[in-house]
Structure formats: structure tokens, C-alpha cells
């Protein structure tokens, strides 16, 4: 179709799109206008005297003749198409070839994607020969980074990521001083670099550099199971409920059964039989991993290759879990001796990774300290300095009234969440929430429940609530009471009611309720466990006053571990995201050997205020045990953030640590791990993403081609406004379509005349 249109209109649609139609009359306009009038007059006179035909036929014949004559007269206006095109051999054309692992897939023929690209862009290929006649070609290979290449041959398909943004940006910068006429990107579009494409595309668009995209591979696999994403807990505490959320992408495999396996360092730690749904194209499976010892573990999730599966490489995914040894220290302040304290202490005592330090106000200005590290800890009661309070990763407030605290202590508690990023848990009780006078205090803002209800009577009856998880609670790791979701749901259904003595306000916008309770005869639920992020930390409320009944109640068997499990997990969830003073992250946490890695440290002082004048050094330990120091520089744009880069040359697990020095204040970060290997990655979403490539082309004035049609590039790339160009005016009067229309008009006129006996 495109070829027919090009024949009729003399030039390809690409030229038409980029060009501008102008008129260059061969004679003065008044003369041409006169000719046009004359043409109409001639036509009118021709048919004026003809007899024996109807009025309608006369009009049609007249119109046909007049149109044909006017078309001829219009040619005298000499319409032309003005278009900019590259001056031959004066411009550079960048050809970016995807060299990531997904290009090694063989999904649509006898050869891999890379082999097909090599063939299409080989020096001897017609396309490359045609292009090199007109342009100086610059080849680049890209994956996580972009590197110059001599030619298309020799693609290794080894990169773990496809970073399209970096590739476009890199090529533009490298060719900044050259007359760049255009960029050709040959890729499957599996961009997983995690970067925003927009800035790179806009920069090219600003220079009017068209980006032509060539898509490789199938847009939809006929039969495939892909492990698209495995979400692992970032740095769980030892003994935590390790849940791996696995997203499978399904193509033509509905109704089949697969076995999903997770391995930690080669040891199977979870298996799950999954029946694949027929209607959905994606399914989420949750794997519960067996306990892992403190340290770094390489997790592999895989599913066996099905018969006739299009791509086998995406049936496996790798990740890293760094299990923290702890112990995490949590401060529990209780205002009155009550069973909740004793039972929570007993539950947490079974967890060696947690240390619950309890401060019980047993009388006015009298404290019982339990679980303290030494005789000095909390000797003066509740912490009065941020330094002392921020040493804990989590704080639990029992039934203790606001008046117990000084205004500064209340502000400190709010800052503990907001600034330090700690986890705060407020328990229900007769001196908690609105009943404890917290309304209007800095802590009220932190709470996930608004304290907007009138307080209840101090010695009034307790309201019994039957408690169940919400939809969010069903999948919350802290509320998994048994090994499977169904077993866990059964336990929740069987638990006896608890009581509340507080007037519970509404859930704040942005807060999430995980447990709700309903009183007998009521139709609405009240929040029981709710959380909201506040600043860097989280605030949680557990509004029941007697969760210990889930241990003691007559319906609960002696050996039942529900209460212990729940509290261990709840307290762990408090501390899980609580940051250290120096927090370290490497992005990405998985690369191919030879790829760059960014180290990012967030540094705070003892009061967790961002620090911009520290000397921060990262230490990278390679898999072979060699240590290298990487100085980190303040990022300028963000307070307290320092960044640096290194290249992971060796394969294996890297450990990255960091130390911050500021005068005599030295703080070290917990080390983080990163994996460099040659397997997996970048194949999780390996189907050709044509829409993305089409968008890039459209936004930059380029065009998208499937690889099979890439030869058409050779003509299209010529027309560009970037680089050294010349403006050409192309005549349109001799377009075949003009003659075709003329012939048609005259032919129809003749046929009509003949049918009416006039010819």
C-alpha cells in the first residue's frame, strides 16, 4: 500500500510528512486566474449548444470538462514540496544496537534476536550499504551503559539491563559536536533501567534529531510462563516471616499446573504448586521461604520449562536477601501494670532478634525497668534527649496519658517517627488516645486514627469486638499466623473477641487498616490495627486493650502460638524499616560483570538530621575478597545524600559498606550486598514492546519499523532537519496521481457522452 501511494504521489509518505507545500506559479497569478475563467467558459460553451440530453447530464458533463481544464490550469501554479534532507557524506548517523540478555532469545525463527540484528545491520547488508553511502555511520552497543562499536557483528547479549534512557543520552552526548542527522535504535524495547525516558527524548527532540526505532522479536509469545518479578524483603531481621511475591506472566498456558521453587544459595527453601488461571495474563504467587541465617543469601526462583515453551530463559529469576542478625531494640513504655505488658514481653522474649526494653510506671515517679542493657539505661525514666530515644528502633506506648510527658518529650516522640524514621506503636488502654488526653498534642498528628471522638468514661465498660483482617491485612506479613493463607484465615476466624475502651476516631487519609473489629449487633467496623507513614517512619495503633486473651482465653489451646507469632511479627514490623544513621543503597542490586553500580548513602547525625559536610567513604569488597574504597560526594540536590560509582568487574556477590566521619563523630552503615552474574535478568519482560518504541519515534519525529521492514530506513533517514542539510523543492505537477485524475475525468466524460449518443 505504501509503495502504491509512493508511486502515485511521487514521494514517500515520510517526505510528505516532513515537507511543506509551496506554490511557484509559472505566470502572473492574474494570468492564471484568467485562464481558469476561460477554461470554465470553454466548458460551458461546449455543452451549452448540445441538444438531446437532460439538464442533469449536461451539468455533469460540464463539471467534468471544467474540472479537467482547471486541473491543467492548476499545474501552472507549480506546486512544490520543500523538504530538508541530509547532505550526502556530511552527516553522522548513530546506530544503537541492544546488547542485553533478552537479545539472546530465540522467539521468532531459527536465529536469536541478536543474530537477526547482526544480519540486518552487517556491513554487507543492503541497508547498511545504502546508509553508508549517505552517512558516516557510528555503531553503539547498549545495555546498562552505551559503548562505541566498530560494527554490528559480535553482539554478546550479556547486559543485565536495557537502559534506553542512558543509551539515548550517551549517544547524544558522545556525538554532541558532530552533525548528527539521526539515531537508529535497534532493540526489543525491554527497558528495565528504571530511568525516566522523557529527559533523553526531549533533549533529542530539542535538537530536532529524529530517533528511528527498529523493533526486534515477537510482541506476544504464543506459549510462555515468565517469572516477571520477584519481590523480596529488603533487609529482614533473622527469623522474620520471609515472603517472596512472585509475579508470573502467562501466555497460552491457562489451566496447566506448574511447580514454583525458591532456592537460597542452592538449597530449596520453598515450593508451591500453582494451577495457572485461564483468563488472566498475570498471576501473583506468594512463597514462604524457610528461615535463613543472618547474612547474604542468593535467592533463585524458578519454574520448569513447559513443553513447546517459546522462551525458556525467563523461567528463572535471581535476587538477594540480606538477613540482619539484630537484635533490634524496642522501648515499651507502659503507664500501668497490666497483663498486656507481661504477655507481650513473654512473646518477644522468644525472639532472639528482638530486645524489648520495658519501662513500667508502677507508681507516681516510680519505674520498673525490665530488659535494660545496664543499670544506667532509662535510670531517669523515659528518655529526655533525642539521642537517648533515637537509640531504639521502635517505641511502644501502652496505657499512658499525655500529661506524663513533657511537651518536649511529646515533640520528640513525633520526631522519632517523622525524623528518625522509627516505628511507633500505640496500644489501646484507658489512658491511651483521646482518653489519655493526646488530642491536640504533636503525637495526635502522627497517629493513623484521628482523635476526633469524645473520650469515653475512664471506668466505663469495655466494648467487645470480634476482630478480622481487612483485605490489606490478609496479605500483610505481620498478620500471617500460619504457614498458608488459608490456615491463617482459619485462625483469624477462630480467635475470641477482644475489648476496647477507647473512642476510636476515623482512619486518616493515607492510613491503612489491617485489622478491624465489629461489636455484637453493630453493622460497622472499627479500626483495630492501622498504620500510616509519617515522614520517614510509620505510626501504628493497636486499639484493643487485651490481646493477651488470644493466649489465655479458654478457647485457645495451651500449645497455640498465635499470640506469640502475632506480637513477634508486629514488633518486627515496627523496626523493619527503621533506618540507621548511615543508610546505604546500591542501584541496581544486580548487574552483569563490567557494568557500573551507583552507591548512595544517606547520612544523619545523632539526632537524625541530614548532614552535608561529612567525609563519606564506601568500601567495596569484591567476590574474591579484594577491598576498594570509593569516596562518596554530596549529591548537592538532596540533603544528606552522598553518591559514588564503581564498576563490578568480577562475578559474584559484592558487599558494600560505608563510613561517615564528621569531626569526632564516626558512624558506619550496615553493609549491603549486590550481585554480579551472567544469568537471568532482562529477560523477565522479553516480549517486544512496540508501543514504547513507537512513542519514542513519534515524539522525536522518527519512525518505527519492525526489523523485517528495516530496509525502508535507508530512504527515510535522509530527510532530517538535524545535521548538515539542504532544502530541496520537489515538483508536484508531474505526480502520476495528477495524470490519473485527469485521465479519469476525461474518460468518464467520454463514456457519458458516448452513452448519450454524443460521441
Amino acid at each position, binding site marked *: 500500500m505504501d509503495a502504491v501511494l509512493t508511486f502515485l504521489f511521487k514521494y514517500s509518505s515520510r517526505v510528505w510528512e516532513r515537507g511543506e507545500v509551496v506554490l511557484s506559479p509559472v505566470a502572473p497569478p492574474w494570468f492564471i486566474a484568467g485562464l481558469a475563467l476561460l477554461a470554465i467558459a470553454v466548458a460551458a460553451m461546449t455543452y451549452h449548444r448540445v441538444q438531446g440530453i437532460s439538464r442533469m447530464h449536461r451539468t455533469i458533463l460540464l463539471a467534468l470538462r471544467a474540472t479537467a481544464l482547471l486541473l491543467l490550469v492548476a499545474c501552472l501554479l507549480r506546486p512544490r514540496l520543500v523538504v530538508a534532507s541530509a547532505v550526502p557524506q556530511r552527516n553522522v548517523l548513530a546506530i544503537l544496537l541492544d546488547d542485553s540478555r533478552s537479545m539472546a532469545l530465540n522467539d521468532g525463527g531459527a536465529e536469536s534476536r541478536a543474530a537477526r540484528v547482526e544480519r540486518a545491520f552487517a556491513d554487507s547488508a543492503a541497508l547498511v550499504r545504502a546508509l553508508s553511502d549517505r552517512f558516516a555511520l557510528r555503531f553503539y552497543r547498549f545495555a546498562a551503559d552505551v559503548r562505541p562499536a566498530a560494527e554490528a557483528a559480535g553482539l554478546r547479549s550479556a547486559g543485565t539491563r536495557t537502559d534506553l534512557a542512558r543509551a539515548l543520552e550517551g549517544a547524544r552526548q558522545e556525538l554532541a559536536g558532530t552533525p548528527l542527522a539521526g539515531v537508529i535504535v535497534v532493540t526489543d524495547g525491554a527497558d528495565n533501567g528504571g530511568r525516566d525516558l522523557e529527559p533523553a527524548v526531549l533533549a533529542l527532540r530539542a535538537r530536532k534529531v529524529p530517533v528511528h526505532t527498529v523493533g526486534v522479536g515477537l510482541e506476544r509469545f504464543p506459549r510462555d510462563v515468565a517469572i516477571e518479578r520477584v519481590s523480596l524483603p529488603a533487609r529482614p531481621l533473622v527469623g522474620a516471616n520471609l515472603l517472596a511475591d512472585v509475579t508470573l506472566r502467562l501466555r497460552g498456558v491457562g489451566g496447566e499446573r506448574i511447580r514454583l521453587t525458591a532456592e537460597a544459595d542452592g538449597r530449596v527453601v520453598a515450593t508451591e504448586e500453582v494451577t495457572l488461571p485461564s483468563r488472566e495474563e498475570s498471576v501473583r504467587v506468594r512463597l514462604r521461604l524457610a528461615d535463613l541465617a543472618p547474612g547474604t543469601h542468593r535467592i533463585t526462583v524458578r519454574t520448569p520449562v513447559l513443553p513447546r515453551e517459546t522462551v525458556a530463559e525467563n523461567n528463572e529469576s535471581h535476587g538477594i536477601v540480606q538477613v540482619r542478625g539484630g537484635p533490634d531494640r524496642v522501648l515499651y513504655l507502659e503507664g500501668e*501494670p497490666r497483663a498486656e505488658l507481661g504477655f507481650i514481653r513473654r512473646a518477644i522474649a522468644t525472639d532472639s532478634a528482638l530486645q524489648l526494653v520495658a519501662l513500667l510506671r508502677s507508681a507516681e515517679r516510680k519505674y520498673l525497668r*525490665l530488659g535494660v542493657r545496664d543499670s544506667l539505661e532509662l535510670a531517669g525514666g523515659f528518655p529526655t534527649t533525642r539521642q537517648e530515644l533515637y537509640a531504639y528502633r521502635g517505641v511502644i506506648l501502652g496505657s499512658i496519658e499525655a500529661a506524663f510527658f513533657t511537651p518536649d518529650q511529646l515533640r520528640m516522640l513525633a520526631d522519632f517517627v517523622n525524623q528518625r524514621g522509627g516505628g511507633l506503636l500505640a496500644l489501646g488502654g484507658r489512658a491511651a488516645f483521646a482518653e489519655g488526653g493526646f488530642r491536640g498534642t504533636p503525637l495526635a498528628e502522627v497517629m493513623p486514627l484521628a482523635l476526633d471522638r469524645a473520650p469515653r468514661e475512664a471506668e466505663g465498660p*469495655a466494648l467487645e469486638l470480634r476482630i478480622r483482617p481487612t483485605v490489606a491485612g490478609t496479605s500483610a506479613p505481620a498478620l500471617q499466623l500460619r504457614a498458608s493463607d488459608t490456615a491463617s484465615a482459619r485462625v483469624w476466624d477462630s480467635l475470641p473477641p477482644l475489648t476496647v475502651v477507647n473512642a476510636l476516631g476515623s482512619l486518616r487519609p493515607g492510613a491503612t487498616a489491617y485489622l478491624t473489629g465489629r461489636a455484637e449487633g453493630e453493622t460497622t467496623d472499627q479500626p483495630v490495627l492501622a498504620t500510616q507513614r509519617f515522614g520517614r517512619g510509620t505510626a501504628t495503633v493497636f486499639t484493643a486493650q487485651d490481646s493477651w486473651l488470644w*493466649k*489465655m482465653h479458654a478457647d485457645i489451646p*495451651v500449645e497455640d502460638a498465635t499470640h506469640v507469632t502475632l506480637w513477634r511479627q508486629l514488633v518486627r514490623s515496627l523496626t523493619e524499616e527503621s533506618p540507621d544513621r548511615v543508610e546505604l543503597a546500591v542501584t541496581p542490586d544486580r548487574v552483569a560483570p563490567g557494568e557500573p553500580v551507583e552507591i548512595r548513602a544517606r547520612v544523619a547525625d545523632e539526632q537524625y538530621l541530614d548532614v552535608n559536610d561529612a567525609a563519606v567513604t564506601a568500601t567495596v569488597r569484591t567476590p574474591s575478597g579484594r577491598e576498594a574504597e570509593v569516596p562518596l560526594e554530596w549529591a548537592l540536590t538532596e540533603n544528606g545524600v552522598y553518591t559514588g560509582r564503581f564498576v563490578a568487574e568480577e562475578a559474584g556477590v559484592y558487599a558494600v559498606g560505608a563510613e561517615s566521619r564528621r569531626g569526632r563523630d564516626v558512624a558506619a552503615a550496615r553493609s549491603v550486598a549486590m550481585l554480579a552474574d551472567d544469568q537471568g535478568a532482562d529477560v523477565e519482560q522479553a516480549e517486544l514492546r512496540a508501543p514504547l518504541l513507537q512513542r519514542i519515534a513519534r515524539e522525536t519525529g522518527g519512525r518505527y519499523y519492525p526489523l523485517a521492514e528495516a530496509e525502508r530506513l535507508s530512504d527515510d533517514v535522509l530527510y532530517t532537519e538535524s545535521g548538515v542539510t539542504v532544502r530541496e523543492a520537489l515538483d508536484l505537477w508531474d505526480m502520476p496521481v495528477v495524470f490519473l485524475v485527469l485521465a479519469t475525468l476525461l474518460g468518464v466524460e467520454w463514456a457519458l457522452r458516448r452513452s448519450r449518443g454524443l460521441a
Partner: protein
Amino acid sequence: MTRITMLAVSVAMALAMVPVLPSTASAQRGGGRERFVEPEDNPRYDGRFTFVRVRYEMGLNSEFGFRGRGGGGLPPWAHDYPRGERNFTQILSELATVRVRTRESVILSLNDPELTKYPVAYMSEPGFWTPNDAEVAGLRAYLLKGGFIIFDDFRGRDWFNLEQRMSQVLPELRFVQIDATHPIFDSFYRITNPEVMNAYDAVPTYWAIFEENDPRKRMLAIANRDNDMSEYWEWSGNGFFAVDITNEAYKIGINYIIYALSR
């Protein structure tokens, strides 16, 4: 003002405020010959600390002979009821931050499911206690899940009955004698000489049952052997006992409660 003086003053003040003693409780000190007061209905559970007295049936005890209701018709499990708990809970509420019911208490048998809503229980005169299978199972579950029981008001050979009954309840555990160095005597007041009381003209001793028989682990039960703390509580308002000894009884009782609720 020392804490002890404060306590004595508090006792006096508290007792002056206690209006709840039933008028029928005409009583005579010594030998538990009070007139039996019909217990009130148990209040509804509301989460506050509530004194729980264990009620038990007595059978024919071959070793101790049949000792039924005393002359006043008061069964051994009810000795000192209700003055003992009323006075004690009043003092507890005055001196500690425990949110406590002062005008009501609960009476429950060991196999009553309601018992599990109260983490601390009190049993008087365990020398008369001859539990049936349901009570044995009830107490066993109660203690293993996290409950705490105080045995009080018994002397001499009553101990052997208690020891034997508890060996039925928790055959794997045994009583271990504790002294003033145990944390229970330092959970609120620092009690250096718990033996100072002499309710039965004998030096009292304290015996406890611990998880895995390890005194460093959780305490499940404590027995005031040759002692009667609730007797001191009951009569603290009328001068039968010296104030300082009464104070010790209150102090130990408060320590027990704080300890049981926090450990």
C-alpha cells in the same frame, strides 16, 4: 515522709474510705469463724485488674479428715472474703498505678472458662483443696498459658496437700523455695525480710513453681507457706495486727500483682 510511712497513712486513709463491707460481716478474729457472706454476682469483665478468688469443693480427705464449713459457715476457700480483697484492692489502687476494681471482685472455680480472663488468681486454704479432673485440667491450662496463682492462708500439714495437688496439676514441675533475693520481692517494694509475719506463730516461707523448674524463668504460682496475708488485709483497719506487719502483707501482695502482670 518515707514510703513506709506513706503506706501506713495510705492504709488508714484507704480503710476510712472503704464503705463496702457488708453489714452482716460480724466477725471474730482467730480461726476464721466469720459469718459467711453470700458472694455478690461476678462483675462483667472490663479489662481492669480484678481480684479473683478461687472457689473449690472439698471432698473427704483421708489424711486431714473431713473439715467442712467452720462454725460460722464459712468455707475455707472464702476465708477473709470479702474484706481481704476489698481492702487489698483499695490499697493497691492507692499506691500503684494498677487500674483496679476496688468495690467488686470475682469468685470462680478453676474449670470456669471465665477464669482465663483474669491473669492472677488467689486461693485460700489450699490444705482443703481436693480438685476434680476438670479443675486440675483448668488450672493446668490456666498456668501454662500465662496465668499466675497465689496460695495463701494455710499452715502445717496443709502444705503437703497443696504439694500433692499441684503435682497432679503440673506433674513436671515442683515447688522451689525462694527468699528475699528473688525479683518478686523487688518488683515494687524492696522487701528484705518477708518472713517477718507470723500469722500462724511460725516463720513463713515462700515457695514458687517456675517454668522448667528454673527460678530464672516465669513464675506460675507462689505459695505463702505458714502465712495468711489476707488475714492481715482483712483486719488492717481494726488493730488486730501491728501496722508495720500489716504493711508488710500489703507490700508483698502488691509486689505479687506487679510481678505477675509484668513478667
